[in-house]
């Protein structure tokens, strides 16, 4: 029990990443792949005790590690997870394993750098979710930009440089303003970077308002919320498959996680005051971006826009201030992590064979790839929120929460059930069904065992989460209730 699981979850992948780099040049690609897989698996295995050993009744932080780091600024290496963050550590480590397997035979140039970038990023992302010290959080939060920048820029599509630079500068802009906000809080709290201390810090409303916007920029860009979402379609479209998967499954969650960890508990009054703004932006994302998604002709772009729309649900859930909303938002985050990862992997499977992402180039894939068509069907259903898949649970809970607040809110939010089904199933129909479109489709080979393992693992998780969501929500209950109690008390 005494093992520092969180530190292991952070540093094992990073060390494995460096080992892959050290394993040398292009000739050693085989060994590098195995080291990467071993590192990713080890990183996943050490996160399992976080779930099995988790105390469901305890709303506070568990698995705490605390060591002074920079005493001059009172910064500590302080790690811990509560019901809100623990699942993301697991999700991230799980997805990393899949990404490593998915890139197995696809990535042929600079293999060691590719795997190293993913493993290092995986460790850093675990660090973001586990950090209880704001400075540590920031260091991990911003460090993840570097590997992602490299991943998009080196292994991406034709317009990769533009996308990589846009991704970097957009997210950096947000996080720099957050840095100012954090330094202000550090000063106000009398020199503490402990997030928990900031939760208790009384703040006047005008200051809360300014800080709210400081954090909002950082998190809204990451989520991404309308209207700062425009980097996402570019980044997704140009990134390699693994990059898209990590981007959709984990990186987008950082923003939403930031809202629950920082904005809501530190600035509860400003959050309540400005909830209308957040709700309005979320509804625009759900409804308007849903419509934008319909007209996309590039599959990756389509899924990217659908991510924006789905993440709108998450922010909507957070800012309606009830347990359904917040838990629904968190469940939606996890579910979206699995589903979007799966869909990007599906597109990757087709892209590897056809080297095109345009819907117009496909048609009748079911004739040549039946196994693939069946699995993708499941993920498409989950993306449109069909009951018994993970996509349903989160959306349903958020709509339920919205209904408690106002009927019209729930009504607009529920348009996603129509729009989501429309764009996902229409895409699925155009790609998979119909007569075989061209010779290339006719020559397609069905899934190989490696792809089957990756997609199969995701299919099981998506179904399990849809059928038995309690396994996920019971972990959150105590912490979410505590959060709601905390937000209810004004701290002006």
């Amino acid at each position, binding site marked *: 029990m005494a093992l520092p699981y969180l530190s292991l979850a952070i540093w094992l992948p990073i060390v494995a990443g460096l080992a892959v780099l050290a394993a040398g040049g292009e000739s050693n690609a085989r060994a590098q792949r195995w080291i990467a897989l071993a590192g990713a698996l080890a990183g996943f295995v050490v996160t399992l005790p976080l779930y099995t050993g988790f105390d469901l009744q305890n709303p506070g932080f568990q698995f705490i590690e605390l060591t002074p780091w920079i005493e001059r600024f009172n910064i500590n290496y302080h790690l811990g997870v509560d019901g809100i963050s623990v699942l993301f550590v697991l999700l991230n480590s799980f997805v990393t394993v899949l990404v490593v397997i998915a890139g197995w035979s696809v990535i042929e140039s600079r293999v060691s750098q590719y795997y190293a970038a993913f493993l290092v990023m995986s460790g850093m992302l675990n660090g973001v979710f586990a950090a209880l010290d704001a400075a540590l959080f*920031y260091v991990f939060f911003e460090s993840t930009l570097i590997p992602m920048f490299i991943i998009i820029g080196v292994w991406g599509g034709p317009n990769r440089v533009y996308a990589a630079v846009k991704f970097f500068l957009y997210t950096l802009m947000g996080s720099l303003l957050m840095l100012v906000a954090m330094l202000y809080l550090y000063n106000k709290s009398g020199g503490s970077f402990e997030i928990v201390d900031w939760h208790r810090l009384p703040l006047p409303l005008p200051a809360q308002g300014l800080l709210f916007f400081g954090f909002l920029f950082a998190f809204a860009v990451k989520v991404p919320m309308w209207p700062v979402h425009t980097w996402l379609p570019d980044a997704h479209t140009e990134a390699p498959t693994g990059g898209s998967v990590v981007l959709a499954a984990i990186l987008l969650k950082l923003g939403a996680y930031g809202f629950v960890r920082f904005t809501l508990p530190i600035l509860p009054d400003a959050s309540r005051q400005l909830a209308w703004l957040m709700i309005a932006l979320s509804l625009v994302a759900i409804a308007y971006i849903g419509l934008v998604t319909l007209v996309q002709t590039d599959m990756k772009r389509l899924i990217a826009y659908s991510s924006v729309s789905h993440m709108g649900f998450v922010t909507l859930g957070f800012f309606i201030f009830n347990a359904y909303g917040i838990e629904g938002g968190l469940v939606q985050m996890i579910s979206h992590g699995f589903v979007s990862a799966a869909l990007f992997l599906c597109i990757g499977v087709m892209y590897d064979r056809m080297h095109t992402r345009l819907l117009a180039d496909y048609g009748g894939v079911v004739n040549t790839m039946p196994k693939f068509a069946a699995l993708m069907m499941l993920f498409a259903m989950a993306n449109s929120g069909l009951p018994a898949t993970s996509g349903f649970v989160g959306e349903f809970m958020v709509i339920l929460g919205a209904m408690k607040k106002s009927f019209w809110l729930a009504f607009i939010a529920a348009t996603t059930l129509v729009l989501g089904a429309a764009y996902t199933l229409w895409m699925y129909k155009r790609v998979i069904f119909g007569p075989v479109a061209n010779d290339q489709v006719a020559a397609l080979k069905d899934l190989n065992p490696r792809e089957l393992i990756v997609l199969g693992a995701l299919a099981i998780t998506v179904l399990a989460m849809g059928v038995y969501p309690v396994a996920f929500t019971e972990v959150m209950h105590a912490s979410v209730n505590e959060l709601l109690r905390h937000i209810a008390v004004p701290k002006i």
Partner: protein
Amino acid sequence: MNLPIILLDHMPVLPEIIVLAGACALMIVDLYVTSERRVVSYYVAHGVLVACAAATVFVQWVDGPTKLYLFSGLFVSDVMSNVLKLASYASVWLALVYSRQYLLDRGLLRGEFITLLLFAMLGMMIMISAASFLTLYLGLELMSLCLFAMVALNRDSAQSTEAAMKYFVLGALSSGLLLYGMSMIYGATGSLALSEVARSTSQLAAATTDRTFLVFGLVFVVAGLAFKIGAAPFHMWIPDVYHGAPTAVTLVIGSAPKLSAFAIAIRLLVNGLPELAQDWQDMLALLALLSMAVGNITAIAQSNLKRMLAYSTIAHMGFMLLGLLSGVVGGNRLSADDAYGAAMFYVIVYVIMSLGAFGMLLYLSRAGFECENLDDLRGLSRRSPWFAFVMMVLMFSLAGIPPTAGFYAKVAVLSAAISAGWIWLAVAAVILSLVGAFYYLRIVKLMYFDEPREGGAVPGHPEMRLLLSANGLLLLAFGILPQPLMNLCFVAIQKL
């Protein structure tokens, strides 16, 4: 008095004596070495630097860490001076090692370069330890004259000569401004010693007439300092000189002199004129904002790496000023140590980054090929993955992205500015540093995303490869454990 006692009394100037004696000896030794055996002079310089470092360490940590005034208050030895001196030795030493191959290839590794470098370092050491206007000015001129000559080292190059002329004219002008301001303050206070000046200003500051006189002098002092630091709008010389000078000399100008410029800013403003803090802080705020804006925005338009790094220097000096201007809040000096310590940390980290960046340019240059355009870095990650990685660390550190030392430098000064209530300035600073991130990112893009125009690995001297790697990794190490260097800076400022 017998000799040992005189020696003991003057122990704190031992490093200066060693450099002076070493440089003079080197001049003579160099006469007797043929150009094939120039390496002898090169190693003599190494010996001088090592001896200096040993002497400084002895003065500071063995002899007793007290603050000592020497020569009737002309010279001061304290923790800050010794830390900055050690940093200067290190950066001069690195400059020497990095430049070796470059200068050899171009036939410039002559005794002049090494001797001038040592004399310039002596000037810097005197600046760092100056306790009076007189020594401060002497040190400054000694350093500047050596640097002027070094810029013109390649005397057949029109570009270098032009740069040297510009540097000389503008340098002389700025020295004039500084001297004029000092004479005003001398007129008002009647003393050249900085501690004495501080004492009389605290009495004078109350009276309006004397105050006008003092502030008038202060304006010139700040303008002169801004010239030396290279803060906008007194930055004009920096891009031309950085561009025109041989890269090895640019490396020298871009590193250690920043440390001594910081030291004289602390000595003049913080030690000498603390009573006028409100006035000079407002001036510095303007300089800081302008420098960050001009430096970051103009750098984007540069296609020449040396010019780009020159504008980046301007921006970084603006950032460093953020720390200097946050010390005194409404007459309250409670957070002064934090603010000046942050500025000192910033300037040291900046010097490490600058050494690495220019060192990389030297490393990539060969006989007959100057690496100075952005395009020369294209596809570096293919040709030399390791040094592309080192350069990437340098660039991200310059951009202030964690986990690199540049990030903590930025956080430290921003934190100081925010606690002093300069929130709008801090917001402006981060927005401008976002602009700055673009051009550092462009270098990473060139190295990693583009294909190389020429193939082949990059050759290089083993000792240079080793040191350049260590230089980059040091930034990463300070990025993960910044505590030791930070503490050193704060202790140095506390004991001021």
